[in-house]
C-alpha cells in the first residue's frame, strides 16, 4: 500500500519532468512533431510501466511460477533441448529459407554467445563483476591482426596465441586488483577497458590508431583458401571440392568455425564447473571469508577465473578479427562490455542456456526494425534493472549441482 502511494506520488512528477525535457528540446531542434512524439512516448511508457507495476503486485506469484516452471522444465529436458539447439545451429546454413544474411546474423549471435559464456565464468561463477571484458576481446583481435601482419601467421596458427596473450593480460592486470572488494573491482576493470582502448587509439605506429588494422587474413579450410581465384600453386576450396565458387561458402565456413569455437567453449566451461576449480569459483562467490578459512587461496582462484575468462574473450576476439578483416578501437568501447554483461545478467548468471537466449534476443532485436535498433540499449538497460529487482538470478536461473550424492533419476522430488 505504501509503495502504491509512493508510486502514485511519483507519477505527476515523472510525467511533468519528461514533458519538460521534450518541450525544451524544441529550442535546439525544430523537429516539433518529433519532439512531441518522443515526449508523449516517454510519458506513455512511464505510465505503462507504472500501471504494470501496480498490476504486478497481484500477478507476482503467477509470474514467478511460470518462469520457475520454465526453468525447471528446461533443466529436466536439458539434454534433448541442447541437442535440438545444436542440430538446428548446424543445419541452419542448409535450410531452405537460409541466406547469406541469416548466416551472418547467426555468426554475430554466436560471437556474443561465446563472449557471454566467457564472461559468465568471471561474473556468473566467480562473482567478480568485470566491466572491462571487451579489453580482452580487443587484445585477442589485435594479437591476431599484428601476428598476421608481421609474422604472416594464419588464423588457426594465431588462435592459441590470441588466447594466451589475452589470458596473460587478464592475469597481469588481475594480479594487483583482485584483492579489492566487488564494487572497486568493477570500476577498476572498467578503467582497464578504457586504458586499453585509449592505448589502441593513440599508439598509432603499432595499432594504426583510429584507422585500425585492415587486410586481416581470412581463415582457410585446412590450408585451402576461400577465394575466387588463387595465386599460382594454391588450390582454393571450391577447386579442391570441385564446386562452383560462391561467396556464401566462406560465410558458411566462418559460421561453422565460430559454432565449433562456441561449442568447445561451452564444453570447456561446463567441465570446469564440475572440477575443484569451478566449485572454488562458486564458493568464492558465495563467501570469500569461508573460503580462506578452508585453506583456499582466494587470489589464485580469482586469477584463474579472470585468466580463463580473458582467454575465451581473446579467442573470440581473434575470430572477430578474421571475420571482419578489419578492426579498429571503435569496436571495443564500454558499450560492448555493457552489452556482454547484459547478456550474462539477463540470461541468469551462471546459466549457459540463458546466455544463448539473451544473445539471440540482443542481436536479433535490432533486425526487427529501426525502432528496435534505436531502443535496443534502452530496453536492455531497463531490463537489467527489472531483472535485478524482480528475478535477481536471471530469467532462467536454476542451478544444477556440480555433483550429487544420489543420482538424479532415482530421486523422487527436487526440493
Amino acid at each position, binding site marked *: 500500500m505504501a509503495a502504491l502511494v509512493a508510486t502514485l506520488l511519483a507519477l505527476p512528477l515523472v510525467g511533468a519532468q519528461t514533458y519538460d525535457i521534450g518541450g525544451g528540446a524544441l529550442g535546439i531542434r525544430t523537429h516539433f512533431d518529433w519532439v512531441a512524439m518522443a515526449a508523449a512516448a516517454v510519458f506513455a511508457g512511464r505510465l505503462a510501466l507504472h500501471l504494470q507495476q501496480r498490476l504486478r503486485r497481484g500477478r507476482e506469484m503467477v509470474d514467478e511460477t511460470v518462469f520457475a516452471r520454465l526453468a525447471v522444465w528446461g533443466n529436466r529436458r536439458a539434454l534433448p533441448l541442447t541437442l535440438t539447439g545444436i542440430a538446428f545451429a548446424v543445419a541452419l546454413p542448409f535450410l531452405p529459407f537460409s541466406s547469406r544474411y541469416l548466416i551472418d546474423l547467426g555468426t554475430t549471435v554466436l560471437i556474443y554467445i561465446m563472449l557471454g559464456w566467457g564472461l559468465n565464468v568471471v561474473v556468473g561463477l566467480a562473482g567478480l563483476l568485470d566491466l572491462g571484458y571487451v579489453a580482452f576481446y580487443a587484445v585477442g583481435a589485435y594479437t591476431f591482426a599484428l601476428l598476421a601482419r608481421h609474422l604472416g601467421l594464419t588464423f588457426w596458427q594465431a588462435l592459441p596465441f590470441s588466447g594466451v596473450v589475452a589470458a596473460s593480460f587478464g592475469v597481469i592486470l588481475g594480479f594487483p586488483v583482485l584483492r579489492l572488494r566487488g564494487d572497486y573491482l568493477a570500476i577498476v576493470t572498467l578503467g582497464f577497458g578504457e586504458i586499453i582502448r585509449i592505448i589502441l587509439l593513440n599508439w598509432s605506429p603499432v595499432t594504426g590508431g583510429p584507422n585500425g588494422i585492415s587486410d586481416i587474413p581470412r581463415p582457410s579450410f585446412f590450408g585451402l583458401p576461400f577465394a575466387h581465384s588463387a595465386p599460382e600453386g594454391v588450390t582454393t576450396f571450391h577447386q579442391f571440392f570441385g564446386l562452383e565458387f560462391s561467396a556464401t561458402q566462406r560465410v558458411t565456413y566462418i559460421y561453422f568455425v565460430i559454432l565449433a569455437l562456441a561449442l568447445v567453449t561451452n564444453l570447456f566451461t561446463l567441465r570446469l564447473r564440475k572440477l575443484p576449480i569451478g566449485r572454488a569459483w562458486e*564458493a568464492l*562467490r558465495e563467501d570469500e571469508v569461508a573460503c580462506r578459512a578452508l585453506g*583456499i587461496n582466494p587470489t589464485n582462484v580469482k586469477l584463474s577465473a579472470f585468466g580463463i575468462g580473458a582467454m575465451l574473450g581473446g579467442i573470440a576476439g581473434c575470430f572477430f578479427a578474421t571475420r571482419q578483416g578489419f578492426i579498429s578501437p571503435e569496436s571495443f568501447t564500454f558499450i560492448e562490455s555493457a552489452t556482454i554483461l547484459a547478456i550474462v545478467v539477463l540470461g541468469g548468471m551462471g546459466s549457459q542456456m540463458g546466455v544463448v537466449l539473451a544473445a539471440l534476443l540482443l542481436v536479433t532485436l535490432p533486425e526487427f526494425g529501426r525502432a528496435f535498433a534505436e531502443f535496443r540499449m534502452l530496453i536492455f538497460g531497463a531490463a537489467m534493472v527489472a531483472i535485478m529487482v524482480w528475478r535477481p538470478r536471471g530469467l532462467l536461473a536454476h542451478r544444477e*549441482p556440480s555433483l550429487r550424492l544420489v543420482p538424479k533419476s532415482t530421486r523422487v522430488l527436487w*526440493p
Partner: protein
Amino acid sequence: MAESQGLLLAVEHLTMRFGGLTAVQDLSFNAYSRDITAIIGPNGAGKTTVFNCLTGFYKPSIGRLTMHVDGEALLLERMDGFRIARQAGIARTFQNIRLFAGMTVLENLIVAQHNLLMSASVLSIAGLLGLPRYRSAERAAVERARHWLDKVGLIEHADWTAGTLPYGAQRRLEIARALCTGPALLCLDEPAAGLNPRESAELNELLLAVRAEQEIGILLIEHDMSVVMGISDHIIVLDYGRKIADGTPVEVRADPDVIKAYLGEDELEEPPEVTAADLNIR
C-alpha cells in the same frame, strides 16, 4: 593425559589492539590434541578476536602463536589465513554461520577438500581429461563427505541447497565442512548458539565422538554452559581481554574470580541468540 606429548597449539603473550582498544591482552594458553579446550567469558571478552588471530584474519599486535604439526612448529602470526588452514591444519566455524548458501550440502563438503582435489586434478588438466587419477580422488572426497554427513545426520539432505537447511542443521554442516579439511585443530565459534537443548546434547555427542575417533584437538568458544561443562577437558576464562582462570571444569567452577566476573552475574543475562539465527536463514 601426558600434556607435553600432545601439545598442538601454544599461544604466548597474545595481545591484540584496535586503535586505542585492547581486545586481548597478554594471553597465554595451550591446546592439546585429543583434548577439548573451551574459551569462555562474557560478551566482548575477546574470544572471537583470539580465533581471528589464530586463523589469520587479524595480525596480532604482540605475541607468538605456535602450531605443532607433524613434529614441525609453525608460527601462525607470520602466515596468510588460507595457509594456516592449509598447512597448519586449523579449521574453523563462524559465529554467524558462513556456508556456501547457494551450493548443495555435498558441494560445501567437497569445496572443503579443494586443495587435495586440486593437486589431484593437476591444474585442472587431469580433471578436464577425466583421468582415473582425478576420478578416484573425487570418489574418495565424496566418501569422506559421506562419512561426515552420516556423523552429523545430514546424509538425507546431501543434495539440498545449504541455505535452505534449518538453522541447527546449518551449524552441523559447518562443523562437518571444517572436519572435511582434515584438520589438526578444530576451532568452533559458539557452535551451540541458537540450538535447542536437544540439539545441544547432540552437539556434545558429536564433539566427543570426534575427539574419540580423530587425532584432533578442539578449541571451543561457547556460552552454553551445558556444552562447556559437559565436554571440556580444559577451560580458559577471559574477561576484558585478560585470562582470569585456566583449568578443568571443576577448578574453574570453583574459582571465585570466575564466579564474580562471569557465571554469577552474567549467565542469566545472556540474551538468546535469536538475532544471529534470524539473519542467517535466508
